[in-house]
Structures are given as C-alpha cells and as structure tokens.
C-alpha cells in the first residue's frame, strides 16, 4: 500500500464537500459539507504521518477534531437562532448582510 490511494480518497471527499457546498441551499447540508472537508484534510494528515512515520500528523488531527467540535457548537447555535428568527433553513433567505 502506498500513499496514493488514501490521498485519492481524501481528494474525492474534499471535492464532494466543495461541490455540495456550492450546490446546496440547506444550512445543515452546508455544515455537513464543511465537516466532510475537514475530515478529508485529516485523512491527508494521517496518510503523510504514515508515510514519514512521524506523529505530528496525528497530533494535528486531534487538534483539528477539537476545533471542529467548537465550530459545530457555534454553528448549530447560529442555526437555531436563524431558524427561530426566519422559520426556514434556506440560506438564500439569510441574505440580510448582503445589503
């Protein structure tokens, strides 16, 4: 096994995450696309840790997971507020900062 296969999987997951982020309009779908992208980057860190037998990648992944947990907490609180305010999950409705 070489590093190409896991890196290709990570690239596929990241591309799907970016594509979904562009295509979807549901707040939850956008959040989960972000989580997917974070996970694919973690997979790259672990793959290169395996390649060079260095543990820095594992440490970075653990820090990124903690950051993702913080991001999910804040983002979900924002979603709850938006849903109470507008009674919808469509991101196009939440465009008041555009004007």
């Amino acid at each position, binding site marked *: 096994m070489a590093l190409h296969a*896991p890196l290709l999987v990570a690239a596929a997951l990241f591309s799907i995450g970016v594509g979904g982020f562009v295509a979807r309009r549901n707040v939850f779908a956008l959040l989960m696309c972000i989580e997917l992208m974070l996970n694919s980057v973690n997979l790259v860190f672990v793959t290169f840790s*395996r390649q060079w037998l260095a*543990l820095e990648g594992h440490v970075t*992944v653990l820090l990124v997971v903690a950051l993702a947990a913080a991001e999910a907490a*804040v983002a979900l609180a924002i979603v709850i507020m938006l849903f109470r305010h507008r009674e919808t999950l469509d991101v196009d409705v939440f465009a008041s900062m555009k004007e």
Partner: protein
Amino acid sequence: MLDAILLVVLSAVAVVGALAMVTRRHPLGSALALIVVMIAIAGLYALLAAPLVAILQILVYGGAILALIVFVIMLLNVRHEDLAHEDGLGGRLGMGLTVAGLLFMGLAAGIHAIPADPFAPPPPGFGGIVAVGRALFRDYAVPFEVVSLLLTVAVVSAVGMAKRRLD
C-alpha cells in the same frame, strides 16, 4: 492482501456515503450518511497505523459531533415545507458538479505526480496512546491548552447564543 481489500471497501463506502450525504434532501438523511462516512474514515485511519486517531474519530465525530447535529435537526422539527427548493440540473447543481469534477481532476493529477514507495512497516507502538500522548502533552502542550481554551469559549458562547430570547 487483506489490507488491500479493506482499503477498497472502506474507500468505496466513504465516497458513496459522501455522495449520499450531498444528495439527500432532508438533513436527517444527510446526517446519517455522514455518520457512515466518519466510520469508514476511522477504518482508513486504523489501516494507516493510527489506532488512537481512529478510536477518537468514532468517539468524537461519529459520537459527539454527529449526535449534536442530529439532535439539533430533531429539536428544530424540520418539516418538508421548511426545506429549500433544490431541483433541476441547471444553476447551482450544475455549478457544484463542475466545481467538484474540476477540483478532483486537479487534485488527482497532483497526487499522481507524487513519487512514493510502498509504506515502510511502522515501529512498534506507532500511533498508540503512549506515543501520541507523549507527543501531544510534551511537544505540543501549548497548542493543546490553547485549543482547550478555545473549545471552552466556543461552548459557553454557543449556550449563551442559543438561550437568548428574540423579541
């Protein structure tokens, strides 16, 4: 040999799960597909000699973060009429497909150009609790403390935000 089979199966599960996540209309379906993706990625971590990271992936991602997302979806009681209209291959869906395809082709070309031998066998204990814990709490103690502070601030602010009444 077993490694190769597991690699193919887990990769296929991860990619198919990710596609299912992006294409489900209701967020609950997306969240369940995302749990499958997370567990497949945990399996890939285990294959890549990262047992501790694999366990934490299942505990923190599959367990805590996804449970939080599912909990909020159910708390908001999302009905079908709350969902945005997202149909047709034109517009955003086409743009998303194009972006994803182009990005993947670019990344795959870059990955293909990396010269690499097959992995060397890892030293005993690589990626285990002792080795990663020593690295995390000795060499990376300051980043770890900063992240724990950030997590505390984020959770407190999230509670404050979600509790506030709108009037």
